[in-house]
């Protein structure tokens, strides 16, 4: 009898879940107050890359708090974020984006290029504008309704290769570079840039290896790379696999010895924490925002909020990236409100998306993002990268230290993606 009762209770519980779930979501959005600008923002806060997603999520939350409390929202209207955890599940990303469209969001962001790749089919088809904080070549080429608040992974490679050739390389002829790339949009974007620009810059690509996001050992692939005797190894990945690769390179006696560079998606405090400061000492990296030590107004404000709400994220570049992206979104919405008025945007329909894109994103000009990014945020027709500046950093004594000035990333035409 007890078992039967338990089973009955379980059945009631299960049926309740089935019944309540739709009601919760059906009731939720309608209960929200009006007179807000709704945007959708997703981060991979769970799944295989929480070391990127969680600080990214916190950066969004804190930036929105700052915007709504200190800057008066955008155009006088508070921004309401429909935040969702994508769990880095690409099928789920499609559902989330569709829900954003249904719930009246006027633009959306993803944290990663993979999420954007999964979202962009539907978004481009519907004309729903989106921005990815970390973005790959295939998200932006050919330009449609997806934008990058920063340069893409192909640009990361070009910026690093140029810096290496001009400042680090002491030999003669072409330096030999090996690449270790995360399977997916992150690695492919970097490879696209390398294949397009290696000859022009004067770099010889001697080997390309791929790794998975959950890799725990890359000794075998690094042994292959070692046999090719490269001068420099460029890693384009996320923090955890990058830490594995650098640790393995150290164990194999490859590093120090060769130079190691990392693309933006992995170059953050999490890399230092996961690998250990002594292991990653001297590793170079490319990034699209200033560092936490820069003396610009935006850093001071981000520091204030990170220490207040998420002190564990202090020094994290993912936090900075989403903070900066959220400020750019505020600027977009401010322009859109100014140019078309709140009523058009409030509808959250195709007309509102078009207004945000044409009267917000495409009107961006000279926005400095409180000094957080190099140059300014400006839309150039035919180029959906809204900012085109990158800077080289190096890990010194466990800290991410800027080297030199910002480099401008020229637009590369990728014929493989249909660029004209």
């Amino acid at each position: 009898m007890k078992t039967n009762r338990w089973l009955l209770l379980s059945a009631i519980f299960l049926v309740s879940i089935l019944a309540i779930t739709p009601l919760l979501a059906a009731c939720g959005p309608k209960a929200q107050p009006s007179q807000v600008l709704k945007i959708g923002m997703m981060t991979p806060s769970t799944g295989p890359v929480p070391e990127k997603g969680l600080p990214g999520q916190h950066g969004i939350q804190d930036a929105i708090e700052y915007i709504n409390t200190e800057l008066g929202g955008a155009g006088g209207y508070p921004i309401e974020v429909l935040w969702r955890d994508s769990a880095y599940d690409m099928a789920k990303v499609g559902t989330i984006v569709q829900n954003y469209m249904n719930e009246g969001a006027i633009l959306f962001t993803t944290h990663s290029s993979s999420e954007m790749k999964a979202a962009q089919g539907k978004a481009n088809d519907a004309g729903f504008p989106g921005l990815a904080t970390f973005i790959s070549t295939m998200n932006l080429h050919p330009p449609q309704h997806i934008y990058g608040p920063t340069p893409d992974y192909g640009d990361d490679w070009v910026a690093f290769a140029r810096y290496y050739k001009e400042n680090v390389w002491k030999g003669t002829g072409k330096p030999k570079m090996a690449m270790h790339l995360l399977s997916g949009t992150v690695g492919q974007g970097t490879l696209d840039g390398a294949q397009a620009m290696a000859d022009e810059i004067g770099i010889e690509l001697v080997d390309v290896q791929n790794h998975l996001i959950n890799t725990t050992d890359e000794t075998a692939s690094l042994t292959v790379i070692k046999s090719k005797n490269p001068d420099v190894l460029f890693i384009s990945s996320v923090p955890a696999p990058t830490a594995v690769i650098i640790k393995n390179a150290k164990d194999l006696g490859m590093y120090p010895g060769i130079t190691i560079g990392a693309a933006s998606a992995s170059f953050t405090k999490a890399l230092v924490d996961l690998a250990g400061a002594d292991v990653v000492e001297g590793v170079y990296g490319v990034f699209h925002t200033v560092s936490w030590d820069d003396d610009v107004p935006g850093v001071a404000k981000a520091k204030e909020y990170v220490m207040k709400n998420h002190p564990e994220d202090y020094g994290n570049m993912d936090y900075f990236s989403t903070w900066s992206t959220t400020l750019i979104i505020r600027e977009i919405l401010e322009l859109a409100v100014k140019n078309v008025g709140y009523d058009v945007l409030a509808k959250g329909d195709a007309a509102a998306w078009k207004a945000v894109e044409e009267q917000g994103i495409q009107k961006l000009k000279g926005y400095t993002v409180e000094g957080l990014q190099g140059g300014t945020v400006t839309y150039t027709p035919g180029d959906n990268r809204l900012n085109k500046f990158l800077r080289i950093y190096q890990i010194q004594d466990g800290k991410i230290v800027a080297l030199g000035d910002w480099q401008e990333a020229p637009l590369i035409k990728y014929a493989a993606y249909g660029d004209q």
Partner: protein
Amino acid sequence: MDLPAGTRNYSYAQDMAIFRTKTHWILLGVLILLLFAMPAYWHDWLSVVNRIGITIIAVMGLNILTGYCGQLSIGHAGFIAVGAYTSAILVQRFGVPFPVALICAGLFAGVVGMLFGVPSLRVKGFYLAISTIAAQFIIIWVIQHWTSVTGGFSGMDVKAASIGPMVFRSQASQYYLILIITIISVYFAKNLSRTRVGRAFIAVRDNDLAAEVMGISLFRYKLTAFFIGCFFAGVAGSLLAHTSLSISADYFPLTDSILFIGMIIIGGMGTILGPILGVIFIRLIDVLVTELSPALQNAFPNLPSGFTSGIAPLLFGLAIILFIIFEPRGLAHRWQLFKASYRLWPFSY
């Protein structure tokens, strides 16, 4: 066929009928009416419902393979990937009409499934599970590295499904497409389970040696089960590709293959209703956690950041453990018990 008290079958046709009484037909009519009217009253939920529909088709195939024939497969997401890419390539590169591509996707996934099903003739249980995991890894590796055909790591952009001039671009139109194919799949699976082939599957599952002694060809029926199970997966993959409008290997992780097994355990293996209930249950838990995470994180600011990250896998794992311990025959069995008691009500004893 469970019939209400006092109802008897007097002909073979009555005995074989899926819908036997007037009440059955009325309930079926109401259900179909509700399903077809859903876009009118649950529009905001269509993306979730569409995903549930596609998953039901895939898991129905796995249920035929694992639930009916007893061949455990942990590579089902890989077979869905085969269908998705087959359909996408046929439509994008060769201009094949979507309905043809849909069927080809099923056929090709079925053939690939048969290839990976060959080890089932020698191994079973745990060992077969390991060999089907290989299918998952091999298929995904090929997709990622055969760049000229699949787009490699970049994936592929895919056109919306279309039949003649009708393009299934809106959610509602995609819903009707998925709904109709889901209904056909469920009807096919229901009938298959009652045919000679279906009974042979059950015999192989229950005791393959005894089945062979009775004259059932293990070679033929095990491979048939792999073909049919993977055909369903291929069809689901095709629908996924043409409704997502973009695919990459990331859409087909190993965790999905494991989750599909969890769905048929929770729903009830070897039943037609089981996969449907299992898929709805797991997908809604997933949605529930996604929707509630922001609110939970705001409600409990003192808990560590991202504490909600463990909720979904915890609930999945807990549900599977509880069902295996307390209700190994799944939700479908609970439903049967409920119907049985309802049929006898108020004279249940």
